[in-house]
């Protein structure tokens, strides 16, 4: 039987975002722990010491509300914490303080651009909770490790858990959603959105439905997806595996699977029968969160311009194509950089072109955001102005920019130091042209015999001699003149 590929894919996501508060969710410990020695960024509260009690971080509530509003959620005026009870060594109290019955916010959505047009992914809920600590296994794998060590530095970091409805119909859509969500969380400064480092985490639920019979595969939860690429890869792998269900593969059962990026496959972690009964109940140590409308309005007022709105504005204000705009707003820092450049240089499309090609290439190679480089808008603007003035050619400008990324020097300095100034002196260029023409009589003859393409050879030779500094327009013109002038 041939493998069908018309099954409907159904994907829902559960995202955990570490909030960028100064202190932990329920105590005064810092949220910056990555450079600390294990178990030094802790206190009686986040260690689960006897008698210690949680105090809710107001900033975390603020950030939660901010994220909820950015995701078009309804913020609940009454919400409350519950205890999620289970035993694990990284969970110091034997329960996680989370929100179960009354989450902070519900009923949101996020529009995403799919290859088939715009689509709304509904957000079921957003709630606050505390992060667990970390286990460091003595060997690579938990089942072969002789012992594991517990580090509680991360325990108690505030998390917003965002749960979508199962609205994504392909692994690609799931990735697009995650990228957009990350972008928004970064725009509003509540999460730094780093999947690799785990400050943003994504678990996915996936199942397939046969559109003819309506029959559905068991639902699989995929964990440990720590890059945007893997969102797509893991779900593609899993969708392919799930297809076998319709061919009677008995191994496809409801379970939790983990993505192994080395093996590029998912691996069974936990079956349905091992699912925990978390025995949720209201957290008696913390009174309910009761918000005032004015508080929510105040936070609404603090929301910055979000990517979609910014994109529209860019298209109108700078008259750039939608494609350019969507790339420019894909990062808040990049969008700011673009606007800073445009404020000092009046050709937005040229700025956009340079950003989308040369700047983005540099950023990608370095794996950083624009604000993490040595380049500022001043650099790019100066570079573009020099091109306009004819001091340097566009080609030279590319290598100047590269150098600027490297050292942070201003383009003028680089041009000066490396002697890259464009030669625009006609006499000087003419001399070189003359010399090249004289040295290559055979090619001159070919040109004059009708092989006009040979002109490129001469231009190339002139550029070679001038190390690319000759003004290309002038070279063009002077070569033409020289070749076409009657023989003396």
């Amino acid at each position, binding site marked *: 039987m041939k493998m069908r590929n018309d099954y409907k894919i159904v994907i829902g996501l559960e995202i955990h975002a570490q909030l960028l508060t100064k202190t932990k969710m329920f105590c005064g410990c810092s949220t910056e722990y990555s450079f600390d020695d294990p178990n030094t960024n802790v206190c009686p509260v986040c260690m689960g010491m006897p008698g210690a009690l949680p105090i809710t971080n107001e900033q975390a509530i603020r950030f939660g509300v901010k994220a909820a509003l950015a995701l078009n959620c309804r913020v609940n005026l009454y919400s409350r914490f519950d205890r999620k009870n289970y035993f694990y060594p990284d969970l110091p*109290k034997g329960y996680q303080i989370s929100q179960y019955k009354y989450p902070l916010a519900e009923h949101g959505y996020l529009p995403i651009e799919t290859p088939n047009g715009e689509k709304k992914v509904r957000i079921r809920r957003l709630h606050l909770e505390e992060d667990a600590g970390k286990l460091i296994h003595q060997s690579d794998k938990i089942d072969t490790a002789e012992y594991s060590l517990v580090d509680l530095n991360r325990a108690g970091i505030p998390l917003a858990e965002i749960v979508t409805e199962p609205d994504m119909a392909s692994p690609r859509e799931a990735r697009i959603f995650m990228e957009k969500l990350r972008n928004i969380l970064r725009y509003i400064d509540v999460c730094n959105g780093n999947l690799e480092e785990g400050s943003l985490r994504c678990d996915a639920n996936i199942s397939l439905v046969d559109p003819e019979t309506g029959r559905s595969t068991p639902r699989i939860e995929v964990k440990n997806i720590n890059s945007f690429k893997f969102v797509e890869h893991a779900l593609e792998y899993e969708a392919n595996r799930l297809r076998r269900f319709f061919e009677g593969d008995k191994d496809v059962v409801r379970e939790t699977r983990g993505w192994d990026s080395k093996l590029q496959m998912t691996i069974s972690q936990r079956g349905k029968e091992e699912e925990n009964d978390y025995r949720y109940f209201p957290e*008696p140590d913390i009174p309910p969160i009761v918000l005032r409308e004015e508080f929510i309005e105040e936070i609404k007022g603090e929301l910055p311009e979000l990517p979609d709105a910014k994109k529209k504005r860019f298209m109108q204000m700078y008259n750039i194509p939608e494609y350019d705009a969507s790339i420019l707003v894909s990062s808040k820092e990049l969008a700011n950089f673009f606007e800073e450049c445009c404020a000092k240089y009046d050709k937005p499309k040229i700025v956009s072109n340079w950003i989308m090609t040369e700047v983005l290439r540099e950023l990608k190679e370095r794996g950083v955001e624009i604000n993490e480089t040595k380049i500022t808008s001043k650099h790019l603007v100066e570079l573009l102005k020099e091109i306009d003035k004819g001091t340097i050619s566009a080609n030279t400008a590319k290598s100047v920019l590269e150098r600027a990324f490297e050292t942070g020097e201003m383009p003028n300095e680089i041009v000066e130091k490396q002697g890259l100034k464009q030669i625009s002196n006609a006499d000087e260029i003419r001399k070189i042209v003359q010399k090249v023409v004289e040295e290559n009589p055979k090619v001159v003859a070919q040109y004059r015999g009708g092989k006009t393409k040979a002109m490129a050879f001469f231009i190339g030779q002139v550029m070679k001699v001038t190390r690319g500094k000759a003004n290309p327009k002038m070279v063009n013109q002077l070569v033409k003149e020289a070749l076409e002038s009657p023989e003396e």
Partner: protein
Amino acid sequence: MKIYEMTYSEIETSKDIRPDEVLDAFYNRITDVEDKVKAFISIYERRENPKTKPKIIAVKDNILVEGKKTTCASKILESFIAPYDATVVGKLKENGFYIVGKTNMDEFAMGSSTENSAFFPTHNPWSISRVPGGSSGGSAAAVAAGEVPLALGSDTGGSIRQPAAFCGVVGFKPTYGLISRYGLVAFGSSLDQIGGFARSVEDVAKLSNIIAGKEDLDSTSLNNSVEDFTRLLKRPIKGLKIAIPREFMSNALDKGIKDQIEKTIYKVEDEGAVVEEVSMKMMDYATAIYYIIAPAEASSNLSRYDGVRYGLSKSDPSLKHQYMKTRDAGFGPEVKRRIMIGTFTLSAGYYEAYFEKAQRARTKLIKEFNDVFSKYDYIVGPTTPTVAFKIGEKVENPLQMYLQDIYTIPANLAGIPAISVPIGIVDGLPVGLQIMGKRFKDAEVLNLAYAVEQMVNFDYTGGMKKLDEGLGDEDEK
């Protein structure tokens, strides 16, 4: 009068006692009687002579004192050294109190006799073959025996008031939220409240002034301005309205205690207070509600004792077995029983039938209290259904033990202030009167308690005398 027989206030105001005499008096008293009473789990070494009169106090061993063992009378915390001071302990220290040691209790405050201590039972000074009540039995016995003038306890379902009644001392549970729970090892978080023991209502009011107050480390600590607990002590009670719930005076109540309560009520009426009988139907459900909510919260609160970070740890190659071995070896039978009850009532499929129903019933019970308090200033009745029972008498029957708290539990469920004041003797053993008041009307509760104390003129040194005369052994078989 011997120094150890004096109240905290008497010692403070007495001009001819030297600081070292105070310290000597209580340390000597401890040396003399502790073998019989067994009130303490830890006794701190006597420090150098104080410059000012030391304010002697004992602290229940579920309240953290930095650098000292805090065991909760459990093997699982037998060697646990507290890494910080409980808020109340910090306040005691700031106010120059001298902590002499940590008192015995039922393991994790679960019990009504102090027999559930993993280490040893405490004996009632009035009759050492009898229990001091619980769970703060060590604190109550220490105060009754003259080992300390003051002690801290905790009250989740009566754990201050019931032992106070059994030992013939005053025990006060203030309004939930008036005293920070930070550093009190949690049992039933929505019910737990720290409070004091003393040999006078005035002392307990003064102690409350020291330890109360809104505090940032406990989110359930309430934002009420710190009130002066002593401010109404001497107010006449004429015209105050008192309700006696019929349900508190039913057949479950020992005849001798009932007589004592009625006798006291007549005196209160004589002072011009208005006393009326009321019906509070929800009181019959209080124990059932409590034994769902408290174990549920406890099952979660005690999850942290897993052998990973501190306390007893029994290692095993399997994580699950490490947990099981540690907790099996570390917890006693009553604690295990409550963890199991609580785990059950919170489980999927049972949560609605038990925990949620109990929560709804609790709300109903609070409403009933509010209704009565809309017409009356106080609700008064017995603290306990019986006087102190024999050690060993009820250990085999947990239900019988649970019924010890039928009159005290409602105040915890409602979060209201409640006090037990000794009013007389039945069969040679003290009887307590319980006074409950409206939330935040703690000074009012102390007002009536003070008035009753003046009327009954109870001899707080009765327990000490019996202990000294060796009469404590009289009814031992």
